[in-house]
């Protein structure tokens, strides 16, 4: 079975002064029937990469094969089989949901009935409402429905849930899960680690136009060697030295995030008693202590050496 998407050493340089190397040698392989997530901070090159795969942006070098075909020779055939939702599109406010989907359906030689697509995104009650009157989450579902109406084999979603409330995000997740159940392939980008962990079989972590790490969310976390995080703070003026905690049993690495000390640990039950003992020994007073499972966020920090929130600033430097 051919892969749904294959990218080989893709690069893309945006002209400008200075030119921006948005994508710098990316290789991706998306298996048919899987959900592949592209994660990364602002400006990492996610949109540029996905739009190269969608045939909207031309790669400076390298090539993206989609459903076994090349954009150079088979553009129209690929477009018949993919559905896309751009990072930002404002559909015509004055058309109704049904009219919009009927319009998009007319572009495809085969596909769903428009009201089937509406049903897939649960907007039946709103089908005669003008787009202008919809909430942000409902508009986003219409955008996804326009991607589904051509009955695609491959769905591209660029930040489908950014800016939505948790309820709306879950609705989008459900649409994606349903689409996969029917055998479809999904390539999505996101800033949300939990979204990627939940939806994706494989995740590629992007930074500065390159892939830092790529694997299943589970493996990425496992490869940290530390599947748990222990976070603590000590009272006021007391600042333990930066390496405090590093040598303790079970602790893999240490960092400080806005006053909170974070320890990556392999075994919580070994590390915590040792930590408490060390704190008592130095006469420090704990003000908080929490533990959690490691997430993709920690994977990003591990590879990029900074947290996701700092990402955009880092890029500007």
């Amino acid at each position: 079975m051919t892969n749904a998407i294959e990218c080989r050493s893709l690069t893309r340089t945006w002209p400008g002064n200075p030119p921006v190397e948005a994508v710098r040698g990316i290789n991706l392989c998306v298996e048919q029937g899987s959900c592949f997530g592209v994660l990364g901070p602002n400006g990492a090159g996610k949109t540029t990469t996905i739009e190269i795969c969608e045939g909207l942006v031309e790669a400076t070098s390298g090539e993206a094969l989609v459903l076994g075909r090349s954009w150079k020779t088979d553009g129209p055939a690929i477009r018949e089989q993919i559905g896309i939702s751009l990072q930002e599109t404002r559909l015509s406010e004055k058309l109704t949901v049904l009219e919009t989907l009927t319009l998009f359906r007319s572009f495809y030689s085969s596909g769903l009935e428009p009201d089937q697509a509406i049903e897939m995104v649960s907007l039946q009650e709103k089908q005669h409402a003008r787009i202008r009157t919809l909430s942000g989450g409902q508009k986003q579902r219409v955008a996804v429905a326009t991607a589904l109406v051509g009955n695609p084999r491959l769905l591209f979603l660029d930040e489908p849930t950014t800016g939505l409330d948790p309820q709306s995000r879950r609705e989008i997740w459900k649409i994606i899960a349903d689409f996969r159940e029917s055998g479809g392939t999904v390539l999505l980008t996101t800033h949300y680690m939990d979204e990627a962990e939940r939806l994706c079989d494989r995740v590629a972590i992007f930074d500065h136009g390159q892939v830092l790490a790529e694997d299943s969310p589970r493996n990425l976390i496992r490869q940290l060697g530390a599947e748990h995080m222990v976070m603590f703070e000590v009272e006021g003026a007391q600042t333990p030295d930066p390496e405090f905690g590093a040598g303790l049993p079970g602790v893999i690495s240490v960092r400080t995030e806005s006053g909170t000390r974070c320890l990556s640990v392999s075994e919580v039950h070994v590390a915590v008693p040792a930590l408490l003992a060390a704190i008592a020994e130095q006469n420090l007073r704990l003000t908080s202590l929490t533990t959690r499972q490691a997430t993709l966020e920690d994977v990003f920090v591990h590879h990029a050496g900074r947290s996701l929130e700092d990402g955009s600033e880092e890029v500007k430097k």
Partner: protein
Amino acid sequence: MNSGILMHPLVQLFLARFREFLRTPEAVFWSYVFPLVMMVALGLAFRTGDVPPVNVAIAQGTAEDQLAKVLEQRGGFEIIRGSNDDCRTALRSGKADVIVQLSESDQPTRFQYDAARPGGRDARNAVNNALQAEAGRRDPLQTEDVTATEPGGRYIDFLVPGLIGMGLMGGGVWGVGYAIVDMRIRRVLRRMLGTPMKKHHFIAAMMASRLVFMIPEIIVILILGWLMFGVVSYGGYLAVAMIVVLGAVEFSCIGLIIASRARTLEAVAGLMNLTMVPMWVGSGIFFSSERFPDLVQPLIRLLPLTPVISSLRLVMQEAAGPADILPQLAIMAGWAVVTFLTAVRIFRWD
């Protein structure tokens, strides 16, 4: 939902545009009501028929009252009286066409007027004739005045073709240009590019929807012009229809090329004004473009709007037939083809 013709992308794109237009009341207002208001207002303002009175200001001097009485008796004068300053103000502001001043018996009667202003010299002559006749002048030649109130030769007959041309230009340039740039800004063009939609379907639908909006607009102008002012086409309506359809196509193509690359509404509005202002001024909407110097006449004849208006006037006022307006139709077709092909080549989807 059945497929077939209704699900053809051309039909759907056309319907989408059509609905958007109908659901934008201000767009409907500007394209339908505005030209009508303009026609009615100008038609009434330049109504011919009863000859308007001559506005005369009588300056302070000798025998003012007698002068006023004489002019009143002769009729056809609207008299303004006041100090010399008041009179000059009246002349400056256009309330008076001429100032008359009668002086000492051995001094000449003085007329003061602006020779460059339409009506200034006429007013002077009218007052002069009245005073000369009163003083005993007898005209050796008998004359009779017949004013031009026949349909076909009035200002309104001249104006309606101009307004039709203006409507075609505004509708095509704004309707196509603005809508496309708006879709580019909203990234809908880019979104559509990601579907199997054919680009020429999109462009054809944009233009076709414009034609369908413009033709009723023109029909409304023609019907109202006929009902209110009796404006008719002496050359029949086949030639008018040919000009209107070709003109609508021509200006849709011009709208298309204006919008083909602009990425902001400011940019496209600037380009539209740059395109339309020379035609508003030069193509003879409100007054004959023959008034411009001979040197620029060849240029004016090549402006996209000039052949539309001049051929409409030939047909409607001078009863020309389709065969007589071929040169104008050729210029319009030329503009349409050249701008269309260029626009399609340079069109930007994002």
